[in-house]
């Protein structure tokens, strides 16, 4: 903003800036709009033109796609919601417990454990993928939801621990001390004081757990072989295989549906999500 620039110049600059931003936004959003619009078009008109407004609006693709596989998509959505819901509960509980220990309690070797915890942040999942599979296979957990859920109760997502430690450290220590004076033990401090004061970070962790688990493809691909247990991403992929991509309309309809939960979460918690993304980066 050049101080010497006349006002008209500033307005024009704003205009240009908005023009660029709007163009970029359209490019960004067009594929998604195209997906939705295509899901509402009759099969033979999908690749007919680039326009987004269907000449003839119809919901047939949704009705047919919903039941196109051996089980209905209702089942796949239930599976997905179950797995993602359990992941949210597991992550919130186990990660906040660990984070409370790291942020507020004293014990031997704490520094070492903390460094190791941070180290797991950098470890690519490939390294543990094969032995974990073998472990779960020997436990007889393959073809069940357990391999997708149990690790979440064991604080496997160190990122959330890290996030919560950062937040907990910002809560004034005087509050704990007063509670200790009143005879509170660590458990009560954690459950009655720390968690209620931490709803922003807990909500952020819950949102990301949900979205990441809901979108996860590799885990279900490895551990779920029975279509009855399929999550939505697996079902979509099965759809591609089963129809040989001949039923685009239905595929697009189910793809659109599969995006809706994430989209709703995004609309509802936009501010928390945006803050959550920036949080890890700028707080040291």
């Amino acid at each position, binding site marked *: 903003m050049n101080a010497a620039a006349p006002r008209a110049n500033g307005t024009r600059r704003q205009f240009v*800036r908005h023009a660029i931003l709007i163009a*970029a936004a359209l490019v960004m959003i067009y594929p998604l709009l195209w997906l939705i619009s295509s899901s509402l078009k009759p099969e033979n008109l999908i690749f007919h033109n680039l326009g987004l407004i269907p000449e003839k609006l119809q919901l047939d693709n949704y009705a047919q796609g919903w039941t196109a596989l051996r089980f209905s998509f209702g089942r796949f959505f239930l599976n997905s919601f179950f797995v993602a819901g359990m992941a949210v509960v597991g992550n919130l509980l186990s990660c906040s417990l660990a984070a409370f220990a790291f942020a507020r309690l004293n014990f031997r070797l704490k520094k070492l454990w903390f460094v190791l915890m941070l180290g797991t942040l950098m470890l690519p999942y490939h390294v543990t993928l094969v032995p974990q*599979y073998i472990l779960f296979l020997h436990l007889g957990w393959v073809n069940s939801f357990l391999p997708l859920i149990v690790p979440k109760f064991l604080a496997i997502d160190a990122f959330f621990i890290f996030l919560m430690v950062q937040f907990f450290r910002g809560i004034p220590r005087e509050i704990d001390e007063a509670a200790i004076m009143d005879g509170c033990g660590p458990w009560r401090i954690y459950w009655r004081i720390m968690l209620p004061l931490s709803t922003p970070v807990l909500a952020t962790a819950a949102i990301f757990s949900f979205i990441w688990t809901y*979108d996860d493809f590799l885990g279900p691909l490895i551990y779920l072989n029975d279509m009855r247990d399929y999550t939505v991403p697996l079902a979509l992929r099965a759809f591609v295989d089963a129809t040989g991509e001949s039923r685009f309309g239905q595929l697009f309809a189910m793809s659109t549906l599969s995006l809706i939960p994430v989209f709703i979460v995004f609309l509802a918690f936009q501010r928390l999500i945006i803050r959550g993304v920036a949080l890890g980066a*700028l707080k040291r």
Partner: protein
Amino acid sequence: MTSTVGPIGTTASGRRETAAPDGLRARLARSLRRNGPGYLFLLPWLVGFFGLTLLPTVGSLYLSFTDYDLLNPPRWTGTANYSYAFFEDTRFRSALSVTFHYVLWSVPLKLIVALALAMALDRGVRGISVYRAVFYLPSLLGSSVAVAVLWRQIFGDAGVVNQLIALVGLKGPSWITHPDYALWTLIVLAIWQFGSPMIIFLAGLRQIPQEVHEAAAMDGAGPARRFFRITLPLLAPVIFFNLVLQTIDAFKAFTPAFIVSGGNGSPIDSTLFYSLYLYIEAFANFRMGYAAALAWILLVIISIFTALAFLTSRYWVYYEDEGR
């Protein structure tokens, strides 16, 4: 990351009092009182860390020196897996090359787009929250199968991209099935998801005091000069963070490659991402030992990249609070 933490449940400063003339039982009780709560809270994580991270890591190192098909017990083969990967396995070479191409193109391009749009959004733009939301949405949806499926159609023979090209009277190739272009559709998909680094850049830009820019403008520094002399240096820590994070993420990419290539890296292995190849070796060919070796090679590669970033960062990342 130093934490001087006041203890709960103890009155001492955390120092161990030694040479107290009490018995083993009393010392044990005191140690339990002091450390017990901490370890109780840490228990789920400890179980997860040992059971699902540390032991599997050691296990995969061991397996990487064996032949293991899940049915028969692992057979020790020494460094055979590694020498096979480096000297014989042409698919390994393709996977490495595909992944390097993907990382080297997608990460810088994504960061450039992210920074450009973050700067366009930075100050005094009306409706910033709407733009931010629209730009971020693809990042959020990006790892989903639905988007990968969508991408396959957009770049398909009769897809949107080719229809656009047809508008100017040209005929586009079949992007997805042409070995020269298939990887690029995935790179474009990665760039499309610039939203998350953009948000981090935006937060970083907010921390640059406006006065610095104003003072420089007063002194006659033009926009380009201000960008290279002020914005970039002050943003270096954030750029560094984004670079490391996005590089690691790019090495790990799996879902888009799996869906777009139909699960096998086709056409002729041009989209055989490293993760995809590892998956195929482990869960389609049941060569668990070889897959473990592949995992360790990847770990070493990522470590080298990260270490290089950290080592060189001394020369190009300036942290204000370090006062160097």
